[in-house]
Each structure stands twice: as C-alpha cells, then as structure tokens.
C-alpha cells in the first residue's frame, strides 16, 4: 500500500485513531522489525539509481528498509549511501539505528505538517521516496532537507541520553585539562554530538562531487537551518539546590524541544522561505535573494531555487506527483485545505459516511483504552 493513499484515509478526527492503529503505529521494535518495513518497502532491484539523483532523505528512509543495523556488513548493503557515508556508517555502526529512527521521524513529521496541503509529503514505494518533488530545488525540497537533517540530530541526541551510544559528549568538546574528563568537569551536551553527527553524515552528500553547485549550497543551507531549528529552541531549565534548597547553587541545562515543535518551526520557515539565486561575491559563490528588495535570509531561514509546481494533477512522468484527485477537503475553509484550493477548482463530491466513533473513553497513561462505540453520520468531501 502506498503511504500516500493511506494518508488520504487518515484524516480528521477519529478515523485517524483507527487508521493509525492499523497502519502507522505498528512500528515494531521488540516485536517484529519486518512490520516496519511494510510501510517503506521499496523495490530496490528494479531501480538503478545514479548518485546524482539522490537527496538526503531518500537514503535515510532507505535505511528503514533494513531491519537493524548491527554490523559493518549491513553498511555495504544499504543502497543509496554514497561511499563516504558507507565509511561513516562502518565507523559508527551503533549510531545507524538512531539515524534510521530519525528518518522515520522526519517522514512522520513531514506528513503531519503537510497533511492539509496539496502535496502531502506522500512517500513512494520506489526510490526516491518523495518522488521528483524533492529532486528539484523547490520549497518542498527545502523543507524535506531541513527536517531530515534536524531529525538525524534529534534522534542521535536522544539515543545518546538513553545510553545507546558510547561515544557521545565526552570524547569531543571536553573542557578541562584532566584526561579524566567526565570526573573532572562533566561532559558537554549531547546535542553537540547529535548536531555534529548530522553535519558529518547528512552534509557529506552535498559536499561530494556531481552535485550542481547551487543545489549543493541550497541543500547545505537548509540542512543547517533544520539543525538550527533545534538549537535555537532549546529550553533552559534550572534547579536551585543550595543550603535548604536556596538558589545559592543553581544548575541549568538545556532541554531539547519536542520534535513536533521543531516541525512547527521548520514549517513556519517553509511558509516564509526565500527564493534565491547563486551569485558570485569575490571568488566565493553565495546564495542571494532573487528579489533584491527582500531582506537577505538568515541562517535559520529556508531557501529555494525554483518555484514549486501547483501539485494539482497526477503526472505519470514525475514520480511523487500524485495530484489531488480523491483527496479529502474542508468545505468551510478558505485556506489551502479548503475544497476550493485543494481541488484546484475542479470541484468536489460530497458523501454521507457512517463513522464508527469512540466515545466516553477511559484511558490509562499507557496502553489501555476502553471506549464505547458511537456511530454518526459525517459529510465527507473529496476532490474530483
């Protein structure tokens, strides 16, 4: 089943719950690793892909199709990695599981953020997972690059603090003269390691040859902007623990924002992204706003080179261009999720559907829900 199709079903309200229970959230880790792959199973053999064609998210998602990455041999088998990434993979095999989870996180978050847009971040069974949409230098590509770089940094940092990785924090950036860094002065923050790993692993692709220079600059910028979305939204938390709990001694630390927050930030940046072109300043090539009257973009802004297509119609020549036929829309909304815009003026059809809803539920904090079933009729609008 295509995820794109499933996300068509997964729309408002309670249908989400049912649908997601069936499909999205069956990401077995303990239970059944193969289950995960159902959603991201690509027919790899039929596609011989040249290195040029890649964008960062694809190989990351590709990693999802391999069970667990435990030994160096798996690195060789991972298709879609360039040679230098295979080297990094071999050098730090234990991190790869986190990278894989990061890719998954990126796809989930992308689909959440774009659930109401014409392009709903649907993934394909084939490589590249997002279709051609992200191979061009569009706004959507900028988002995908940013969220994937951020998700790798995020997942690696999380893996660090749950003790899965051994090298985090303490090896690098240690302040203090003693060889025994942890006991003398503690370790630096894990986020530094996560971001550094994301920089080396994700960015290496853009630094390799064969990329058009303007695309490489754009991708690198957006990768960095994605990571900045985490770094500039770290929450500072403090604890006073002096005499009798007074603030004589205060310890502060930075907590990573929830990934939903990171997604929201990047989505905002997506909405205000700047169209740029490559210019030469001296000997270096830089990206400058196409419209010189605009303010130059900052490190945290997203940039793109080409305007996006309208995503209205299915295009068999462009993988990933699924069109909006059959998508659900909101009749009352005037925004992009409204039927007017979503259906590109083709009109929509309305159906009365009976929905089995959950009501008066009892929840435990984990893993237990007891509900009554309520049936109700709902009007569903779908694009023609």
């Amino acid at each position, binding site marked *: 089943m295509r995820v794109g199709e499933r996300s068509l079903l997964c729309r408002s309200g309670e249908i989400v719950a049912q649908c997601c229970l069936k499909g999205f959230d069956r990401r077995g880790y*303990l*239970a059944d690793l193969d289950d995960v792959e159902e959603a991201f199973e690509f027919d790899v053999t039929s596609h011989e892909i040249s290195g040029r064609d890649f964008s960062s998210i694809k190989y990351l998602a590709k990693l999802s199709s391999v069970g667990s990455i435990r030994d160096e041999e798996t690195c060789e088998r991972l298709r879609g990695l360039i040679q230098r990434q295979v080297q990094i993979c071999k050098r730090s095999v234990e991190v790869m599981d986190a990278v894989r989870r990061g890719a998954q996180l990126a796809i989930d978050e992308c689909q959440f953020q774009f659930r109401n847009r014409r392009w709903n971040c649907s993934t394909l069974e084939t490589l590249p997972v997002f279709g051609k949409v992200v191979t061009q230098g569009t706004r959507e590509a900028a988002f995908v690059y940013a969220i994937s770089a951020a998700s790798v940094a995020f997942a690696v940092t999380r893996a660090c*603090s749950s003790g899965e990785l*051994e090298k985090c924090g303490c090896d690098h950036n240690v302040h203090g003269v003693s060889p025994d860094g942890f006991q003398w002065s503690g*370790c630096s923050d894990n986020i530094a390691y996560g971001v550094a790993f994301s920089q080396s692993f994700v960015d290496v692709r853009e630094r390799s040859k064969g990329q058009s220079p303007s695309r490489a600059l754009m991708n690198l910028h957006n990768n960095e902007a994605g990571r900045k979305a985490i770094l500039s939204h770290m929450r500072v*938390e403090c604890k006073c623990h002096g005499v009798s709990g007074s603030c004589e001694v205060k310890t502060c630390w930075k907590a990573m924002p929830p990934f*939903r927050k990171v997604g929201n930030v990047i989505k905002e940046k997506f909405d205000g992204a700047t169209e740029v072109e490559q210019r030469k300043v001296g000997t270096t090539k830089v990206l400058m706003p196409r419209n010189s009257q605009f303010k130059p973009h900052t490190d945290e802004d997203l940039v793109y080179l080409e305007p996006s297509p309208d995503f209205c119609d299915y295009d068999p020549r462009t993988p990933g261009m699924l069109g909006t036929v059959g998508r659900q829309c909101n009749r009352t909304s005037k925004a992009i999720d409204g039927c007017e815009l979503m259906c590109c003026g083709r009109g929509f059809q309305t159906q009365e559907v009976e929905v089995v809803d959950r009501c008066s539920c009892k929840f435990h904090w*984990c893993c237990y829900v007891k509900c009554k079933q309520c049936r109700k009729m709902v009007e569903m609008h779908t694009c023609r």
Partner: protein
Amino acid sequence: MAGAIIENMSTKKLVIVGVILLLFQAVAFMVGGLIAPSTTAPVKYLATKCVDTTKYRQESKWFMPWGPNQCDKIRNFDEAMAMKIEANNIVFAVHIPLPEKEMSPWFQFMLVILQFDIAFKMDNQIEDGAMATIDVGLAYRDDTLSEWTAMAHSFEQRKLSCNFTTAKTFENEGRYYDCEPLTFMEVGSVSHKYYLLNIRLPVNERKKVNVGIGEIKDIRLVSIHQNGGFTKVWFAMKTFLTPSILIIMIWYWRRITLMMRPPVLLEKVILALGISMTFINIPVEWFSVDFNWTWMLLFGDIRQGIFYSMLLSFWIIFCGEHLMDQTERNRFSIYWKQVGPIVFGSFCLFIFDMCERGVQLTNPFYSIWASDVGTELAMAFIIVAGICACLYFLFLCFMVFQVFRNISGKRTSLPAMSKARRLHYEGLIFRFKFLMLVTLTCAAMTIIFFIVSQVNEGQLHWGEYTVQVNSAFFTGIYGMWNLYVFAIMFLYAPSHKRYGDEQSSGQCITGDTGANSGEEIQLTTTINHVDGPTEIYKMTGKESLE
C-alpha cells in the same frame, strides 16, 4: 578596645595589609575561575522503557537499559498497545552514569530531577491537581559484572504541574505539555560507581492511582552532581584556609589573654566568629572520599548556618558596642532582642533542613514539597525565617543609624575634649567606619557576584581563557569572608602600642563634659591595659580637675 591594632597602625602599613589581602582575594577568584571547572554538572537521561514479562513481580529483579543483560525494550507505547502490555508491566530504567563512565566519591552529592513528557490528547487530558504515583527503586554496584544491590525503594507522590500553552484543539494534539521539573531524588554521597533507577507508574483505577495523568510519552531525568575538579579545588582551598584562620585565631586570643583584664564581649564575639569560620573551613569532607557518609550534605548546611548566624550576631554586637551612648552593655543578654530573631530564624531553617535533608538520609526520594501539608509546613518555616531576617535587618539598620547619629553628635564636641578622650572617640569612630566600609564592600561584592553568576550562563570567554563564573563566585566569596574574618581578628586585636604619655595611665574612660553629667559612666567597649573600677574614679577625678 582602644588600643586595637588598626588605630595604631600607620596608614602606610594599613595600605600594605590591604593590598596583601586584595591580592589573596584576587587569587581566590582566579583559583575558581581559571583552575576549577564549573561547580556542578548536569547529565541528561532518557528513560528506557522496559517490559516486565514476569507474571509475579520480583523485588530483586532489576532492569538494565543497555549493556549485557539488558531488558526487553519497547520504543513507544503504541507498540505496547499492539502487544497488549499493561501500564503495570512497564519499567522505566535509567542507568547512572551513561555507558563507559563511572561515578566517583568526588561528586559529593547527586540530585536527580524528573520530567514527564506528556502529549496532549483531546480526550485524555491531564486532570486538575493530578498526582503521579511513582514506584521507584534504586540500586548500586561497583563493577560491571556483579549483581545489583538494592539501596532504596519507595512509593512517591508528585504533583504534576503542567500547562498547555496553545489552544486545546484537535489541531494541536500531539504537542507536549509544559511540565515543571520535579525533584526526584537526592543522595548525600556518591560512593558507588554505578547506580540504577527502576521507575514504575502503577495504575489502579479503583483507588484512583495514576488516573488522569494524560498520555505519558517519555520520562526524562537530569542528574546533577558537583564536578570532581571543583571538589578537588574546593578541598585544597579549605585545607589551605583552615591553618591560616586557626593560627591568626590563636594569636588573637593570646594577645587578649596577655592583658590583665578579662576579655570583653566584643572580643569574645570575634573569637566566636573565628571559631565558626574554622568550623566551616575544617576539611572533614576529605573523609567523604573514603567513607560513605551520607549526612555530609546536612552537616555542611549546619556548618554554614552556624557561621551565618554568628556573622549576623557579630554585626549587631559590633554596632551595639560602638553606640557611644554611655549605656552599660558588655553583656550578651542585652542583645537578646536583636540576636533572638537570628537564633529563631536559623532554628526554623534548621528544622526545615532536617525535615528535608534529614529524612533524605533514610529515603532519598523524600521531598517535603511533595505533599500539601509538607509544602505548607515548609512555607511556614521559610516565611518565619524570612520575617526574622527582616526584623534583624530593621534592628541592624536602626543601630547603624543610631551610631551615625551619635558619631555626628560627637564630632561637634570632639575639639573640646581632653586628648585621651578625643583619641578614644576618634578611635571608636574610625574602627566603626572601617568595619562598616569593609562589611558593606563584602556584602555588595557577594550580592554583585551572586547576580552575575545567576544571570550569566556560568562561563565567560576571555580571549583563549574560559572563566568559570560560577566557580569563581564560590571560591571568591568563600575566600572573601575568610579574609574578612582574618582581617577582623588581625586588625581588631589589642595593640601593644600606647597613645602616648597620657595613654600610659591607661584611660579611655569617659564621661562627657557636656551638659548631662549622667553620661559619666564607663564605656564598656573600651579596653584598657589597666582596667578596673578605680580607674573610673581616677578618670572622673581628672575630668573634674580639667
């Protein structure tokens, strides 16, 4: 005390002493800022979700989040939902420290903060005043292969104070609540290498246990310990300071005992100040490196409390003895009104500390703030202590004001006085003003550095050097109050020198020749080499001759 060293010292010598003290002060700041790392280090942990597959719970079973013999893990709770795992079978496991690291006794203490990640769901929201009941076990071991030894086990209740900043709509489902970090655990010594925390959140619908606490996604912990490097620098500093204060204290007391008369109150108070400073200084913490003394944290609090109350009493008595209003003082009981609030306030704080850190000796998860009654009790103690502090400062300010009023009064009548009396008053005024200045400077420095260290993120980059502001604050302020006590004992010790000819008869005994003859009482603050009631009569006799 007329013959205190400070009055008889030439300005040049006084400047030299001042410069030397300032140099030491600078060294104290530099030791903290440049050699020591930051005072404490936070380490963040993400609890691993283990599944307890056993049918009946075994108390001796411990769940390891990673490494050999690690538990059966689940990534998220949707997985658990699919596998029909119940909330009661989920164990959050955290190993302190992270892999490849070891804890060390140099860390002195370990404080653990707990934070829930709770996702917002329209139909599963956090109820008002929801309490989380946490079943927690703590175990330790000293090598990676041996079995875990249980250290503590407890059922704790913590109030969830979470708020959701965005609108509570379907659109915002999946966002997290902003939850305040909860104080979870505190141990007063870190004598083992590895610690393991197993946390459960048992659900019991009938008893309303852990119902309505929302959809918990993760448990995050932050452990805070003192940096080993800072501990070493701190111990070194204490070890150096102890003999310095001790030696000056012995020297000071010898000077006083050399005199004929018994020591006056102010001298005793200065000695007491020295003793309480030495009490803080003595580096008994060295033992905590080898012995598992969990009460060290509490002991440290008590020592600090004693020093602070001694310092506050000293200021009051010093002011009182320099009032120059010809009232007979020199007795401790005179000051009960001012010292009372100090004693009562510090007693309140002591009780509070005993309730918190004292109970933590037996149950490291205990917190007085966790229950409503406890919170009210704790607040009551703190408020009473606060009121006492306010009362004290009112008294102190009033006394300082009185002294200044008397000083300006005396100023006008100074030229008309006899040389001995004039010198006596000038000495009193000078001593008082000097101490006033030094004390205010020290207090201001403390406050300024405190604010700087709070505002700053703990580090300052100065060229290629990184200055640890927090550590500099601690060593600098600690050094400063040591130097303060040192300077007081040195400068306010009785001097061998005499005022001059008239001094030889040893008088500084006065009665004002002003209008009110009622003032003809001995100023008990004054210390003479030859003391005694006869002297008063001698003096008054002289006076009448004049």
